[in-house]
């Protein structure tokens, strides 16, 4: 059976996607984790070893009873060995419990570290990377992969660890009891070896796809919920249902393929377990009759061989889950492989002037969006960037905010190249507010404080006031303490946009890039907001990417971007007098008055 068509082939490009860690990095990471917890780890191995050692007493006891019965043992002897057996069991019980608890403590601490490390890294990702990769993939990693890894760490890892210890000890006991009978495992090892190789050569690829196709089903459902209103308005319900059903179909085809792999793997393995068992019995019988081994040895060897099956089986079966966990882990620690741009925090911009020098930039190789843009922005400037949709205005805005580094050319702020400054430093100087807004789960206060954690409530209210938001904020059920975000109090999109601007006021950088930042407000409110903002932002540089001509009219300088180039630049009056494209547009708008 061939694997189903890979979904990866239909993915057009991996450019901009977040990296997945290589198996070596995963291994290195695991080793680091274990090293960090070396003490508990060895204690765990010890505890499990004691438990396993206690478990191998049983076959010895039975072997000797079987042997001694023929040789006239009495009840006292039977009582004595039974007592030994009982003590061994008690030891096994106590140590099992102890080992499991210590194991869980270690596992949970590793899991907590992992998910916290992950999010710590994620919130420090270069903004340009987030911008390109989108947040969807990150959300999946945050939820699904963390969940799967937890499963592996909580169950697969301890099971395998215990099984490894047990198998080692039982096999050692077998060799110790009857080395010659231990040779029976030679029947099993080659079969296990070949089948395991065959299986695990195909399995990771297949399970990865099974997993991603399963994730696709869920993300489809999530998107449907998220876009509930759109789905309802356009009567997309049936289409969404069909889409989910198709996603399920793709997932099932992978599910079927992995089932095929197990159809080969499982019976081969199980048969290979019986081979040594039958061999020990056959060979043991022959050797006993030949006088080379005792009945106690044969009995114990048979029981040990049977005892070995379980741990070996556990290792092979949970190996699956371990691989699933490993794949999730690769995706989680993959974010650590995102290269941080080489930055240099030593230079502090001497002023807030911006120099853009022959900047070219594109999101895809060989497809530049900006074709040689140069401009100078003085401190306190009010610049409006206008131009048709898709001309590269937003891209220019992102570059000015230091989100992306130009492909060629430079953007300097106060004598320091923007691209070499760390994000945390850049944003103290320049901030970008786009049309896309996010209201975080948390109180209104939390939603504002993120911009300036040490603000007082008075400052928060002032910020809200400066974006015309104080009025509605006062009517919220619990004022600043009102819980916002998904599933809590819902803000209108206009309110959310005001919230975003209030954050900006609190953050108070000297340069602001506003990309359609007021587009969700109605125009009159937008203009009022822009004017009250302007009062607060006195002396700050404001670069507004504008699609409304009034914004341009209010600006000190208008820059017209067309097709990735600056075609006109000057004050509103200058451009109108010059009679270029801007003037034409302005007239078509004004003439209707």
């Amino acid at each position, binding site marked *: 059976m061939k694997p189903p068509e890979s979904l990866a082939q239909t993915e057009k490009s991996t450019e901009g996607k977040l990296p997945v860690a290589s198996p070596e990095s995963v291994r290195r990471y695991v080793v680091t984790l274990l090293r960090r917890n070396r003490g508990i780890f060895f204690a765990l191995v010890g505890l499990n070893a004691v*438990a396993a050692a206690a478990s191998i007493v049983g076959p010895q006891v039975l072997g000797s009873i*079987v042997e001694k*019965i023929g040789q006239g*043992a009495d009840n006292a002897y*039977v009582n004595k060995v039974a007592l030994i057996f009982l003590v061994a069991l008690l030891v096994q019980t106590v140590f*099992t419990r102890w080992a*499991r608890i210590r194991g869980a403590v270690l596992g*949970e601490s590793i899991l*907590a570290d992992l998910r916290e490390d992950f999010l710590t890294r*994620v*919130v*420090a*990702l270069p903004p340009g990377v*987030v911008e390109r990769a989108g947040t*969807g993939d990150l*959300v999946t990693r*945050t939820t699904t992969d963390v*969940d799967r890894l937890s499963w592996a760490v909580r169950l697969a890892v301890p099971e395998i660890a215990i099984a490894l210890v047990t198998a080692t000890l039982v096999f050692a006991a077998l060799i110790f009891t009857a080395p010659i009978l231990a040779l029976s495992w030679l029947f099993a090892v080659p079969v296990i070896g070949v089948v395991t190789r065959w299986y695990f050569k195909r399995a990771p690829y297949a399970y990865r796809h099974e997993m991603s196709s399963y994730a696709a089903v869920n993300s489809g*459902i999530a998107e449907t*919920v998220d876009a509930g209103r759109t*789905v*309802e*308005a356009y009567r*997309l319900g*049936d*289409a969404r249902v069909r889409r989910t*059903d198709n996603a*399920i*179909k793709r997932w*099932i085809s992978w599910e079927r393929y992995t089932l095929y792999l197990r159809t080969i793997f499982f*019976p081969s393995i199980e048969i290979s377990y*019986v*081979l040594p*068992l*039958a061999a020990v*019995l056959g060979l043991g019988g022959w050797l006993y*009759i030949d006088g080379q081994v005792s*009945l106690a040895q044969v009995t114990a060897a*048979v029981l040990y061989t*049977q005892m070995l099956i379980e741990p070996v089986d556990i290792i092979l079966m949970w190996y699956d889950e371990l691989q699933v966990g490993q794949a999730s882990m690769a995706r989680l620690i993959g974010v650590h492989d995102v290269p941080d741009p080489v930055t240099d925090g030593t230079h502090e911009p001497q002023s807030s002037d911006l120099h853009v020098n022959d900047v070219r930039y594109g999101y895809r190789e060989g497809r530049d969006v900006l074709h040689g843009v140069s401009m100078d922005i003085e401190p306190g400037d009010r610049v409006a960037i*206008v131009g*048709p*949709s898709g001309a590269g205005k*937003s891209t220019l805005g992102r570059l000015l905010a230091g*989100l992306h580094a130009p492909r060629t050319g430079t953007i300097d702020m106060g004598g320091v190249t923007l691209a070499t400054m760390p994000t945390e430093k850049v*944003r103290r100087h320049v*901030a*970008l507010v786009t*049309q896309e807004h996010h*209201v*975080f*789960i948390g109180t209104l206060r939390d939603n504002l*404080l993120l*911009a300036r954690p040490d603000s007082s409530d008075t400052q928060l209210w002032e910020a809200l006031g400066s974006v015309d938001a104080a009025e509605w904020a006062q009517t919220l059920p619990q004022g600043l303490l009102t819980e916002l975000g998904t599933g809590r109090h819902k803000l209108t*999109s206009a309110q959310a946009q005001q919230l975003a601007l209030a954050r900006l006021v609190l953050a108070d950088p000297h340069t602001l890039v506003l990309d359609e930042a007021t587009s969700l407000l*109605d*125009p009159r409110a937008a203009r009022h907001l822009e004017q009250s903002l302007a009062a607060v932002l006195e002396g700050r540089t404001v670069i507004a990417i504008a*699609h409304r001509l009034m914004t341009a009219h209010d600006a000190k300088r208008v820059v017209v971007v067309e097709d990735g180039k600056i075609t006109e630049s000057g004050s509103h009056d200058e451009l109108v007098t010059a009679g270029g494209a801007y003037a034409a547009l302005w007239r*078509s708008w004004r003439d209707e*008055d």
Partner: protein
Amino acid sequence: MLLDNLPHSDPGDPVLTTPGRFLLWIGRQQKKLLALGVIWGVVWMVGQALIPGALGAGIQAISDEDEAKALRWAGVVLVLGVVQAGAGLVRHRYAVANWVTAGTRVQQLLIRRATHLGADLPKQVATGEVVAASANDVERIGNALDILPRMVGAIIAFFVVAAILIASNATLGLIVLVGVPLLSLAVAPLVRPLERREREQRIHLGLTQELAADTVAGLRVLRGIGGEDLFLARFQAESKKVQAAAVRTAHIRALLDAMQVFLPGLFVVIVTWLGARLALQGELTVGQLVAFYGYTAFLVLPLRTVTEAAHKFTAARVAAARVITVMTLERMFDEGSEATAPPPTSTAGEITDPQTGLVVAPGQLTAIVTNDPDASEVLIDRLGRYRESNVSLDGTLVEDLPLLTVRERVLVQDKDPMILSGAAEDLFDIPRTGRIAVADALASASALDVVDALPDGLATDLPERGRSLSGGQRQRLALARSLVADPEVLILDEPTSAVDAHTEARIGLGLRDARSGRTTVVFTTSPLLLEHVDVVAFLKDGRIQATGQHRQLLRENADYRRTVTRGEDE
């Protein structure tokens, strides 16, 4: 072949009264698969159960120094092993089939409910809640169906072994038969506290995941303006709570695990001890003693399977409860039904709203101008019947019309319309009249250049929310989508707010053209758009203050002038 019939053509109509009943219902839907799973589970378990007997007989033969017999029993062990392996495989295949069949059913139920709830769903539950239901809970429900056949096999194998034991020695046999269920019961008191702690753990886990997902979703904001530490600290605090809760759970689970070692182990000790004494008295052969040891050791497996099953059923019940929560959400208002609805008197698309005094003439392009965004949002929701509404459509109250009919006749395009992920051309895969071709709609919405800029044109995959596009590009694609739908009444909320002036003027013309003969209401204050509409209604203080031509209103109404010129005259 297995799994060939998935996804289900119809996931059915579930029983949602209690989690237990819901799980039973799921099971009933796949009776045949479960039955086959049970049969093979029994063959597999019993095959396994018989091996100790064969081993005992082998040891006996060796002890009797009967080489031929010993070899024969070695052969029997081999055959039993092979049978067990084959049955084990078939059993596994049915287990997977049962898991997947139940899982897909739940997923299909969830998506159907989600699409039914539509606009109301995000208002009632967080997306994370539904994602958790569709991802984690589906797995847990699947696990319950996966283990059910194995559990039945375990119970039957137990009785087979018991019968063999009683046949060899009545006393020992009875001890095993009575003892093992008692041991299973001994574990039961631990299950409930474990269940409770697991529930606590899941609540913390859910909150942690929600916070993490929310932080990641707002990452652009955090990276752009700061506050990472604030949110990270909050997440870490929650994460520590999960850790503590998980360790608390682990304490009980460790006790359960230890009991699973101790109780059956104790049994093996007792049986070995009694068996050895019986053997000394000559009432039991050496071979039987070895077999007894093997049987009692084997009984660990059914015992463990039963407790594992108890565990998984518990988890499945918690999961089922969450699924039921989503499945029993209702629409926030009565949907009405086809039967009670009066037949449409006409389908001209005339709208009247007594509350604001708005009257929209059929077949016209009407603009509504207001400076109060909240008022426009409310009016739009009332016109589109997304809230309580006394708006009439062609003389019938929209509240009296079935919701489906309203959705079919009236399309509301939101201020921030959602572009769903998938190929760009899939955007137009919506219920439509066919009157407007996609290419024409794209031209009318000035969106041809948006498509041209996509690497593979309409075949290009767009990410969720159309993130790879600019706001203006998204708006134009969304407008084209609405034009393709070609509803009787189209309501557009600021459809060109992110579009540059030049394009906006073109869209004004295109819109007029594409919507000729149909009722269109556009909420806007852009003069470039207002210039092209048939009539403008000016909404202020909750009432329509004036109606007329754009230029006429500009001349005659100072309030209106201020609104559309954005206070330029102030």
